């Protein structure tokens, strides 16, 4: 067991592409850290650098206090689970799991004991003498985990280990991974592009975009006080709604109405010299059907009318979608990135808003409904840099 320290780690590929730029992070011993970001953000490259499968161009990587920049993977005492599992097809499950120990010239009796123990934990005992080709997807995934466990390494590295499983099995395995990590108490670095997986699994998340670490923190920190537009849009499902806004005297003019500025927010905006145009973000869960808001709370937000286009009832929640016409554009590079990642079109002038309402709502598709937005939970972003101006004064 060991801590992992990345200091100003940079990866530049021979063709000049900058995959990871000045990445710094301290991963404590026994911590479960998730690297998350859209595809191509450099999270897998970072993991490969920790594993020793990619050279580090600049910076320093320490595992358990030792600088390992130039150490071969085999000397770093780490185990890795690959997205494709990378099981050796010519070996049985037993041989697959014992391969690393065999290479380390461990005694056969010790290997057998450790493999049997890992197989028992992972419920693979009856499959030990089968070849990977004859196993189901979930079983293969467990073999890949088992291969990592028997090593009893300083750290586990996982490269999207669940993305080849079907949705139901993924949720089930997710809890297993989490339980396993708690039980073993081994440092784990886990890469995923799925923010739900990231939020549910990790002690701490590191959100990456285009090779740059955007923000690291606990799931709650990232959710409540994102550093910038990208993190705000990436974390949370459904994603935060972004709207163009204009600062006018004591209010923020947006497509859902004028939002009064609190003194603290007003002061922050004046100090930051962002100018008149800003971007506001409101999470879907900060909207509500006015009829469901107790009258004494209504004053803490604003009410507005919108024509509801789609109503999705999930049983536990109701999602409604509506579009507001806006003359204030919220087009920022970071938003375009997010939109591209979610397969949406960022070019449209109109703002589509998602709101999560209570299940008792009577709103139907096509209604011109009255909605309430909790403006205490408002985020205001600088449209140029994307920085969250409300981070310090968040509730």
């Amino acid at each position, binding site marked *: 067991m060991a801590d992992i320290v990345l200091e100003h780690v940079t990866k530049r590929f021979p063709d000049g592409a900058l995959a990871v730029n000045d990445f710094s992070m301290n991963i404590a011993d026994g911590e479960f850290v998730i690297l998350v970001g859209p595809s191509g953000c450099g999270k897998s490259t970072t993991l490969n650098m920790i*594993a020793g*499968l990619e050279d580090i161009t600049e910076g320093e990587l320490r595992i358990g206090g030792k600088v390992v920049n130039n150490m071969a993977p*085999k000397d770093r005492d780490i185990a890795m689970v690959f997205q494709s599992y*990378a*099981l*050796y*097809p010519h070996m049985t499950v037993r041989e697959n799991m014992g391969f*690393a120990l065999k290479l380390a010239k461990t005694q056969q009796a010790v290997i057998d004991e450790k493999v049997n123990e890992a197989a028992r934990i992972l419920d693979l005992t009856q499959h030990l003498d089968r070849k990977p080709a004859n196993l189901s997807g979930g079983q*293969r995934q467990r073999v890949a985990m088992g291969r990592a466990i028997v090593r009893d390494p300083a750290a586990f590295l996982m490269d999207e280990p669940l993305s080849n499983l079907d949705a139901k099995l993924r949720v089930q395995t997710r809890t297993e991974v989490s339980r396993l990590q708690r039980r073993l108490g081994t440092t784990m670095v886990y890469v995923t592009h799925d923010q739900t997986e990231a939020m549910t699994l990790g002690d701490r998340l590191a959100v990456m975009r285009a090779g740059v670490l955007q923000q690291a923190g606990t799931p709650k920190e990232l959710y409540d006080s994102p550093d910038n537009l990208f993190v705000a849009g990436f974390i949370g499902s459904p994603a935060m709604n972004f709207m163009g806004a204009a600062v006018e005297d004591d209010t923020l003019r947006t497509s859902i109405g004028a939002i009064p500025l609190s003194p603290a927010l007003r002061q922050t905006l004046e100090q930051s010299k962002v100018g008149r145009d800003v971007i506001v973000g409101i999470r879907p869960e900060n909207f509500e059907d006015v009829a469901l808001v107790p009258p004494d709370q209504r004053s803490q937000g604003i009410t507005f009318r919108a024509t509801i286009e789609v109503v999705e009832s999930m049983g536990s929640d109701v999602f409604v979608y509506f579009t507001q016409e806006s003359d204030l554009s919220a087009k920022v590079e970071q938003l375009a990135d997010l939109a591209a990642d979610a397969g949406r079109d960022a070019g449209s002038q109109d703002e589509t808003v998602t709101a999560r309402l209570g299940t008792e709502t009577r709103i139907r598709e096509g209604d011109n409904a009255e909605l309430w937005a909790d403006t205490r939970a408002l985020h205001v972003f600088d449209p140029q840099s994307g920085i969250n101006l409300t981070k310090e004064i968040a509730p």
Partner: protein
Amino acid sequence: MAAVTTTARQKAGWTTANLVVIALALIPVLWLVSLSFKTPTAVVDPSFLPKQWTWSNYFGSTGILRTSQFIRPLINSIGIGLIATLIAVVLASMAAYAIARLQFPGKGVLIGMALLIAMFPQISLVTPMFSIERAIGLFNTWPGLIIPYVAFGLPLGIYTLSAFFREIPWELEKAAKVDGATPFQAFTKVIAPLAAPGMVTTAILVFLFCWNEFLFAISLTSTIASRTAPASIAYFSGSSQFTVPTGPIAAAAVVITIPIIIFVVFFQRRIVAGLTSGAVKG
């Protein structure tokens, strides 16, 4: 895509076409077999099947399997073929692995050179090689044939094997590295076993090339000390100066065809079957 339906007519057409091709390929072989069982006096007999069957061309007093004029070249063929194949496959697997996996300066040149050697007309090399081998004492020795066979077997091997290596998921190798394998261990314990069907295929192809090779065999040898079986046939003599050794030639041709048939029959499935299934999600 519409489902492909075979009508009876199409079936009949294909069957006829296949039969014609098979007949064209097999009739000369069968004729050769028949010829090898005819008595020396009956070789001019135009009938397809021998009127009188005899083993004398194989085991008779002048039969090919009784004379060192053929036995020794047969041993040469097997020995030279196996050694050349072994060297070529080992070298080719390393080269192919490098080509399939690594980026290194001069990679394009290496591939180009391999292709160039494969394309080079061998006849243009025979004379200089004859002179070189004579000068350095390799003429009429096993190494004198093994070296050119390895040289010409390598491009073939590199091309087939690099295709096989490319099929092997790279993550397996990364997994082996993380599991603590040195690059050499990763190659021998993970990559090579998975590429085994490819290696067998390559070995068979290279061996068949060596086995069938005639031009170098006849040009770079002078006695049965290193002459290979196909070349030795050209030196067969009849029982008298005026008889053509048709029977022994046919018998020898049959003998050198047998290993090829065995290879094809026994290794066909092995060549086709891949070991990589189940390595990754599938």
